[in-house]
């Protein structure tokens, strides 16, 4: 197989997963401007590995690479001691947005920001399962964590989102104090 066929086969197998890679990159990049770079780097690394092996599940494979790229970027930022923002700044609705679209954008931005309030492990678990549609078993494989750990992370993250974004702010939080993430439980 020549490189042209190889490259077309790669693009055909992986481009259909661009939405999930982008969704994951948005929850890994500390600056909105870095999201596109993260996506591109993920695909470049994937293409470099494509010649060595063909993944059974290209979506999960790309998600694993994207997570690794995201971690590398975070380490690089940390080494440079660059000022890392707490989370992305939401896009303000433009003047051309309709009122309905602007409200939808604000809702989406609220969820996005609430996700950034979560510990990284919970944010990644929710992104993989609820935004990208992976099962708990797939998310466990992608993050190299036990399935029970992934379930606990996604459960705590969902509760935190509900408490952040719903009107039920007075509901008490149950079951705090288990595992290393206990300190990250949402404040009621």
């Amino acid at each position, binding site marked *: 197989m020549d490189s*042209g066929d190889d490259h*077309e086969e790669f693009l055909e197998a992986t481009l259909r997963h661009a939405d999930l890679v982008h969704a994951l990159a948005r929850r890994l990049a500390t600056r909105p401007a870095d999201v596109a770079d993260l996506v591109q780097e993920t695909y*470049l690394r994937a293409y470099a590995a494509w010649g060595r092996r063909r993944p059974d599940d290209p979506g999960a494979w790309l998600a694993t690479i994207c997570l690794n790229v995201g971690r590398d970027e975070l380490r690089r930022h940390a080494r440079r001691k660059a000022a890392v923002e707490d989370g992305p700044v939401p896009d303000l609705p433009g003047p051309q947005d309709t009122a309905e679209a602007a409200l939808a954008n604000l809702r*989406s931005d609220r969820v996005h920001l609430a996700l950034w309030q979560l510990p990284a492990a919970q944010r990644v678990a929710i992104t993989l399962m609820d935004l990208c549609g992976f*099962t708990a078993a797939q998310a466990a494989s992608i993050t190299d964590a036990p399935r029970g750990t992934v379930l606990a992370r996604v*459960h705590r993250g*969902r509760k935190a989102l509900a408490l952040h974004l719903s009107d039920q702010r007075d509901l008490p939080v149950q*079951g705090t104090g288990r595992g290393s993430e206990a300190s990250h439980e949402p404040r009621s």
Partner: protein
Amino acid sequence: MSHDPELLAAQYLDHMPEPARGDFEAHLLTCDGCWREISLAREGREIAEGARELAPAGIRDDIRATITASITASAAGRPNIRRRHRAALVLAVVAVVALAGAVVMRTPAQRSSRSSAAVASPRTAVTAAVDDYRENELPGTTVPAQSAPDLSSIGLHLVGAGAGHLDGAAVSVFAYRDAAGTRLSVYQSSRAFPEGAEAQHLGDDDDAWTMQASGVSVLCAKGAHSTLLLSSDSALVRQAGVVLNVI
């Protein structure tokens, strides 16, 4: 009952097999703690799922351009292009596409249907190349086997590359653009490009000729490979011919 509502709720919402599932559902009716866990987690899941989104339009074109650019750079002996250069290259490709008004990099499958049409209505390789230049198209998305010629000395940078067929002949095409946005295409083939009826030879050189077609300047030269240069700027075509040492 001594139990962990958080763990039970997490398992229930993911996959809890029978009969444990039935037992837990019965338990839910009597346990406020488990009920709250389930309610909150369901609400959070709905919120998260409501934030599902599509990637921005054009991201697939950007990825395709990045991969193609990396392969082209690698073939040219620049295996490790820096990210910013890569981004610039992608931007250049996107800019060319945007200027053309549409994404026109056809797939080989789409291209083959066009080739069939060409058989039904024969046209020469040169007129096909002129059409491609005017429509800002490449003959396919296959990566060329050879590396892209370096035309940076005359201010041209590579914005795309592709290999395919032009009127039945295998060709590699490299698309360039200068800072002012003027495009130049370089076609290379092991087969000679047929001379156009309006062709004028360059001086006494039987191996090089030029012509104008539909506002596009064409220069053809024969050497180890036949080379066809096309641009809306005739001076740029000549300069490229000199740099490539084909005239």
